[in-house]
């Protein structure tokens, strides 16, 4: 089981570090990271394995929002993207 974390917003120090710290605290395993900075705009998509995770997706979202401030963060189960965009 995997989930997708997206973090979008103004670039600042420690976004990736903050996000991965929360993920590892929750025992999520980072599978893949794509990130880009366009001018001041930061966009990151992180695919994590949640099989061993000790909290819910919802809880992880709350933790990320609390600890990575000022960014637009989403955590969603990967199935929604797979069903929507793949036949």
């Amino acid at each position, binding site marked *: 089981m995997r989930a*997708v974390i*997206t973090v979008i917003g103004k670039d600042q120090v420690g976004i990736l570090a903050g996000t991965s710290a929360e993920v590892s605290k929750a025992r999520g395993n980072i599978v*893949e990271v*794509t990130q880009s900075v366009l001018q001041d705009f930061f966009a990151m*998509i992180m*695919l994590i394995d949640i099989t061993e995770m000790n909290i*819910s*997706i*919802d809880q992880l*979202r709350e933790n990320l929002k609390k600890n990575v401030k000022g960014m637009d963060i*989403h*955590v*969603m*189960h*990967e*199935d*929604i*993207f*797979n*069903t*929507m*965009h793949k036949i």
Partner: protein
Amino acid sequence: MINMTDILETIKMIQEDNLDIRTITMGISLLDCADSSIDASCQKIYDKIYRLAKDLVKVGESIEKKYSVPIVNKRISVTPISMLVASSGGDPVKYAKTLDKVARDIGVNFIGGYSALVQKGFSAGDLELIKSIPRALSETDFVCSSVNIGSTKAGINMDAVKIMGDIVYDTAEITKSKQCIGSAKLVVFCNAPEDNPFMAGAFHGPGEPDCIINIGVSGPGVVRSALSKLDNTDDLQKVSDTIKKTAFKITRVGQLVGEEASKALGVPFGIIDLSLAPTPAIGDSVAHILEEIGLEQVGACGTTAALAMLNDAVKKGGVMASSNVGGLSGAFIPVSEDAGMIAGARSGSLSIEKLEAMTAVCSVGLDMIIIPGDTPREVISAMIADEAAIGMINSKTTAVRVIPAIGLKEGDELNFGGLLGYGPVMKVNTMSPLKMISRGGRIPAPIQSLKN
């Protein structure tokens, strides 16, 4: 890995374009709750619904969190209550109160099925239930009611049509202190589907299994947003293709949610209803899709053609995305629930006559239309008859949900709040149909060949 553009597209659909699952509706058969004592029957109903649906809201909310997609309503539909009244007798309002109580205790948004199917005639329990509708809707908060008065196979029961004109009016009158909201929870159908998850017309047909999960998707905002990216010179084939692709994506989310809910609740997954259901929120309007296709305002000449194309493309896209499609499936055009329709009605561009034409090419019918409080009862009956005739002849579902605004005139407004919306009182042609409606009887079932 999943493509970055796809991920961002999904998030934009949910965040900006109001993509949501409109409803998870659990259909529950109450046939095994029938008892010769009405009190025993009510108790069995309460127990059965509570047992099967107690986790419905919790499961809905957990799916919402898992996928970050809003599930706006959780609802229950039950066997038409007239069938239980048939064996128990007694005051049908007792059933309405039982349904209301269980809905409140479980925490669902609506419970539908205070219904009777009388397309060919009245059997035991039907008339008693129909006559009790105004009281039932005024004394409950969550109960929705529907009556099927016609079908392509049976014709139109004009005796029922006559009565329903009175019932719609009486329901508005008895709830006039609450914006006449009773009538907003009462639908008169022709060719009612047995598995519809949308209110107010949902009921659990006698041909359905004991318990089932049906899903209603939404997403007019997503379709409009996809169309807004097209070039003004793109032809209608391109427009139709874009609608199809978008409908596919919306429906896939519905399929995912349905499968999850069915697994979590241990109840079989029934159908997805492919309807594009608007809300009064800005950016969630079917009328705005029609305007995006290229009309100055909804109601203009060309509206029926644009809607026909939209309705067909939504079905074509949705059918492939889901294992089972059913319910009403098409575009809804409820006036008070759609910001674009409200604007059209206010400016005078959209008339009831145009809406009637539109109902011939999309799902449902004259829906959430506010009419003057002094509209004669027989005129309401005649509106029902007209709409039923369109459904009967074209082998499709049509319905009437009009709200007589007691004490108000054309141009005044009613506000129901929430998903039911608000809107202006629309002009009705009051030339008298009294003689025809008073005749009663039945309009015979139509011939199915020699189609012209």
